[in-house]
């Protein structure tokens, strides 16, 4: 999987003035790619607004991690609060954007990212509330799992995190928007043809008239 292609493309989703939550995994990695003067506030659901990049041993504070467990810095104007206030913010829809990982995502905007029954069930964490309540939800994930199976499905098979919540999906192979009619392919990787993409994608793709390469 071309992680850098996903991160580079995902960075374009972030607009100045936004409040943003970055899920564990790929989304959190994105923060290291943002310019230091970008006027955004990163919310970390463990109780930080204004969380910023990872820091090194010399500057880390043992009492300051982000929700992914990394020692982070904060930006001037940050604040700390308890978990009930953190999720009040989330459930009240105050966040502009959530970038979130997925086990599966479907053409109805359904997201599954918390449970693979009997095998790996790390728990729900903040995902259900973030997916259901953030103004804009963008999924970052590999297009296919390590066995080559499509993560972009007609309908999620795993237990749902939230239905009809995803606005956009960014993978190593494609950028797709969830529309009422299904998935609209907006951008396609330079490394793959349209036919090849549909072959490795379970969901049916509509192709934008302004299809771009990325």
């Amino acid at each position, binding site marked *: 999987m071309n992680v850098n292609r996903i991160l580079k493309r995902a960075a374009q989703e972030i607009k100045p003035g936004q409040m943003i939550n970055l899920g*564990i995994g790929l989304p959190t990695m994105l923060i290291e790619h943002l310019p230091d003067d970008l006027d955004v506030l990163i919310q*970390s*659901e*463990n*109780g*930080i607004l204004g969380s910023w990049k990872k820091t*090194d*041993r010399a500057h*880390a*504070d*043992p*009492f*300051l*991690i*982000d*929700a992914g*467990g*990394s*020692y982070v810095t904060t930006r001037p104007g940050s604040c*700390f*609060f*308890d*978990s*009930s206030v*953190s*999720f*009040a913010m*989330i*459930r009240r829809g105050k966040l502009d954007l959530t970038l979130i990982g997925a086990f599966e995502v479907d053409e109805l905007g359904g997201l599954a990212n*918390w449970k693979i029954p*009997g*095998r*790996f*069930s*790390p*728990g*729900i*964490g*903040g*995902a*259900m*509330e973030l997916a*259901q*309540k953030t103004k804009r939800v963008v999924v970052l994930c590999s297009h296919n799992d390590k066995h080559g199976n499509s993560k972009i499905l007609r309908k999620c098979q795993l*237990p*749902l*995190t*939230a*239905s009809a919540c995803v606005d956009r999906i960014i993978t190593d192979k494609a950028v797709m928007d969830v529309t009422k009619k299904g998935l609209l392919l907006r951008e396609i990787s330079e490394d793959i043809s349209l036919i090849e993409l549909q072959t490795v994608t379970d969901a049916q793709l509509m192709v934008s008239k302004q299809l771009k390469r990325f």
Partner: protein
Amino acid sequence: MNKRQTIEEAIAKITSGSTIMVGGFGCPGTPFTLIDELLRQGQKDLTLIKNDANENSIGIAKLIDNFQVKKLITTHVGLNRKVIEMMNQGEIEIEFHPQGILAEKIRTAGAGSYGFLSDIGLDTEITDVEDIIEWQGKQLKIESAINADFALIHAAHADYYGNLIYRASAINFSPLMAMAAEHVIVETPNFVSPGELKPESVHTPCAFISSIVVLDKLSEQYDLLEHHFER
């Protein structure tokens, strides 16, 4: 109104079978010293309520490894593969809630209420249809309050009365748990006189606090986790 106790006294109030809330999100806010004393005293059949299971061999993971915990009510245990395995093997019962719902269930108990009406996760497998009611034209889920017998809390500062201030990302669930539990045991490395804390900056008013355990110093468990820098 002296609430100061030795750690032995404070933890000895906990009986086997108790339900215990434990503050902390990952390491920050985890009351490592109180947990170690609970490990030493060995109370069993505990139900723990904590955001996560800490990491392998850290914090409440020690209690789980020592088979003192029959049930864990939590939101995410992704950083502790061993606990996931124990869950898969049926060696521990784990009840997952969405993180903000767990926070709110605890706060609801802390506010002296019994439940709240939520629209989170109604069409997911975490929702039992029996918990759904129609209220003012909307389908909503009743989320029950979660109470506990005890809460174990780490505070950056505590004064004589038990007013608490937390630091940075160590706030997380602690103020909510302090409100919700019947007996609240606090550990702090900074025990100060009345008047030393700014009254507007107190996170947890002393009314909720039962016992204060003063730590001479923070053990190395409170230091940076070296393996977080190895990559």
